[in-house]
């Protein structure tokens, strides 16, 4: 083997070795590296009960209740299979609204309500002006109406 080929092999093996080591490490820590816990996992009891953790889900339409006079707010979070009620006192991000994906940090109390000390909003990867969003929503509603008619 020529020296250049030896060096090529050495570089190749180093990169491959590091990549495999990184892959295995990441695989091993995958559970711990979750930034937030899904709602259905919380329901199953798969959450750290000795420390605060984050839950992520969608705010259920019509579930947001604001206490008059102060910043206390209660709402339900869902991952479309399970539900979790969240209580929070503080300033909500501008993107917080019904149907929005959010991440809350806090812990569960004894009655199964999530007491949050921080609420963050997620946004999706789609960008469009309001008119386009409106017409998309209308088109989706029309589609739904048609499919309902078909069912009848």
């Amino acid at each position, binding site marked *: 083997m020529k020296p250049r080929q030896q060096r090529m092999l050495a570089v190749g093996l180093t990169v491959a070795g590091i990549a495999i080591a990184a892959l295995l490490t990441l695989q091993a820590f995958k559970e711990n*590296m*979750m*930034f937030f816990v899904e709602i259905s996992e919380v329901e199953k009891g798969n959450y750290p009960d000795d420390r605060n953790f984050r839950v992520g889900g969608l705010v259920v339409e019509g579930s947001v209740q604001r206490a008059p006079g102060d910043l206390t707010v209660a709402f339900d979070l869902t991952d479309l299979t399970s539900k979790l009620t969240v209580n929070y006192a503080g300033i909500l991000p501008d*993107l917080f609204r019904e149907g929005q994906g959010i991440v809350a940090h806090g812990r569960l109390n004894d009655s199964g309500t999530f007491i949050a000390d921080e609420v*963050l909003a997620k*946004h999706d990867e789609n960008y*469009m*002006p309001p008119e386009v969003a409106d017409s998309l929503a209308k088109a989706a509603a029309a589609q739904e109406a048609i499919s309902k008619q078909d069912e009848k």
Partner: protein
Amino acid sequence: MWKFFHKLASPPHFYQFAGKVVPWFAFTAIACIGYGGYAGLFVAPADYQQGDAFRIIYVHVPAAYLSMMGYSIMAISAGIGLIWRIKLSHAVTAAAAPLGAWFTFLALATGSIWGKPMWGTWWEWGDPRLTSELLLLFLYIGYMALRASIDDIAKADKASAVLALVGAVNVPIIHYSVEWWSSLHQGPTLVREGGPGMVSDMLYPLLAMILGFTFLFGALLLGRVRTEVLFRERRAKWVREMLLDDGGTT
């Protein structure tokens, strides 16, 4: 074709060639960034969810893209330098590091400024996208610190090239972090199945900004490689002739 590359790898030829190319790159960059910046700020419609805050995308995404591109260039040129012992490629690796570090800093800072009004936080420890991008900044800084600690250029080239190669594993981790783990950061908008998730009025300025930043990065990188080549070849005859003959405007 091979002859062209072979010639280009010789320091004096590279120095002359890059000197000619840089102004064209700079001109293209100014044109693209001029259009993209203006259209992104004033022409593109506001987003249905984020309003005008989404306009930060036009500086954040190009900076983030080049922060990863810069490290990829470093890793590739480090590998070429180690295997084929081409001096010029070590010069490229060394020149790319400070630029990559600045673009990474810019990506982190603009992302933070975007995160405060939208997510509700400047920074979240433990978020995979944010953490892996911060690690990228540390890799750049570590690379520069390692180089600075070794006086002999040839030794510094070899040792730092290994670090550049090893750190490259972080680049795909940054890219896939939002898909592998739950993250506050949203998924990719441009490169995904089903095409870009953006209307064209928003998309074209973004593409122009990415192109413009890429050409600017190219111009800055070539300029830095010229400086690096000049210093490394300071004892060579062509440098002596060039600097003593023409009064040194180049």
